[in-house]
């Protein structure tokens, strides 16, 4: 369970990225955060992974307030969540296999676990043959699948995807979305931020719509509505 309580982020006097957000995301839920560019989607997600701190408010994960996590304990929090970004953010000097194993090494997992899990993850994202390829040898869709496999390497309870299809063509976009839905069905909470109307209308799950830093709509089985 993730609870945003009264969260605001003010960059400057006339730039309120988030304005008193109250939001509860249940376990194993699939939530889409919709809204135009600049509506506050990315800020919401940056606060969740503690890339940024909110100006005020609490973000509760169980009993823990994410905002209060010290810099020293930050890595521990990030190992509990999986992150997927629009620009993939793979390590350019490491192969697909190594990118995934890196996430596990970071968490101090044993070599046996890594040798057992990484092929499974590659299989899940259907990239077994591409294991030894470097990111620049992979297509955008393939890179994003590596990134998803990496995000899952920690066996996170929550997978956060920030515009994961923003750099992909239509075919690859649906490939990624289907993968996210499959991951959600396997029992992981998925938070997907997107401004793509077709995706949101096609998923048929909960949609939280942001506009100018405020939640203007929160629908189960929602549709994307433009005002």
């Amino acid at each position, binding site marked *: 369970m993730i609870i945003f309580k009264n969260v605001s982020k003010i960059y400057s006097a006339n730039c309120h990225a988030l304005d008193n957000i109250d939001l509860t995301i249940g376990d194993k839920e699939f939530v889409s955060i919709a809204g135009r560019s600049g509506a506050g989607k990315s800020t919401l997600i940056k606060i969740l992974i503690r890339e940024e701190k909110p100006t005020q408010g609490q973000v509760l994960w169980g009993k823990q307030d994410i905002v209060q996590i010290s810099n020293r304990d930050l890595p521990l*929090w990030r190992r509990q969540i999986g992150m997927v970004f629009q620009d993939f953010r793979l*390590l350019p*000097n490491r192969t697909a296999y190594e990118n995934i194993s890196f996430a596990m090494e*970071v*968490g101090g997992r044993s070599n046996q676990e890594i040798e057992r899990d990484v092929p499974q993850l590659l299989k899940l994202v259907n990239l077994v043959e591409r294991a030894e390829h470097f990111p620049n040898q992979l297509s955008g869709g393939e890179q994003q699948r590596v990134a998803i496999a990496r995000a899952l390497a920690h066996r996170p309870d929550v997978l956060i995807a920030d515009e994961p299809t923003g750099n992909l063509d239509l075919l690859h976009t649906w490939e990624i979305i289907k993968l996210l839905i499959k991951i959600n069905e396997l029992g992981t909470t998925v938070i997907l931020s997107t401004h793509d109307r077709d995706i949101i209308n096609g998923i048929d799950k909960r949609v939280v719509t942001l506009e100018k830093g405020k939640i203007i709509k929160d629908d189960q089985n929602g549709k994307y509505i433009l005002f």
Partner: protein
Amino acid sequence: MLTTLVRVIKSGWANFWRNKWLSSAAISMVSLAIFGITSLILVNVLINSLIDDLEDKIDVSVYFKLDTSEEEILLVRNDLVKLTEIKGVEYISTEEALNRFKERHKDNEVLMQSLEELNTNPLEASLNIKANETSQYDTIASFFNQGNYQEIIDKINYLENKAVITRLASITKTIRQVGFIILLILAILAVLVSYNTIRLTIYSSSKEIKIMKLVGASNWFTRGPFVIEGALYGVIAAIIAILVMYPLLWYLSPKITTYLPGTDLFYFLQVNLIVLLFFQILIGLVIGVVSSLVAIRRYLEV
């Protein structure tokens, strides 16, 4: 803990190889820095050996009146040796002085003839004194100003050469100081240039560092591979520096010796090879590791 260390070293090694061009650039810069610093040290060795040579040529002679007995002079000598400033005292008897005089002027017939006509030995016995440092001759000269010595001493040539000796002392002192300051400035320059090169290599990985942090790597797990990379730069650069220096000195040293007799840099290198190599590796390690640590700091705050 051990697994983590192995992983950090492995990934540092992999980074090093996969960024061959960047690594070579960094190694050449660090290598140049080490080469520069070592050359400066060798030049300093050269200057010091020249100055030592020069200082060794300075001495002070105390001449005793002709009627002074050998025992008296040797007593003075015993007193002198007790002074801490003294490096060595040589006693030259009247006969010895005569022999040396004859040897030196054997080609000068007029002098030789007049010496023979004299029939007696006109030369005084003397003590030839060398001090540890040029500036100490003044103290030594004042030692002879004590009352009981005045009667047997004829003259001290220090008083005649005083101006030259003090000037020489101040020149050698200045050369040493200026040499040291130049060494220091150039060494700092070399270190700064290497630091900047390593900073650039880390800047090129700044995105990677951010990704590592977002995937949940601790600061040390992120930093580790870069520190290992920096250390590798340093060690390899040091080895390259000595591999270039050895044949270079082998070739240059005889040429330097013809200009500045009494110096042999190649011999110095051979004798101190291990110490020098360790010193270079140490410089390389410090430059590589410290630069990486400092340069990466600002990228870790994600």
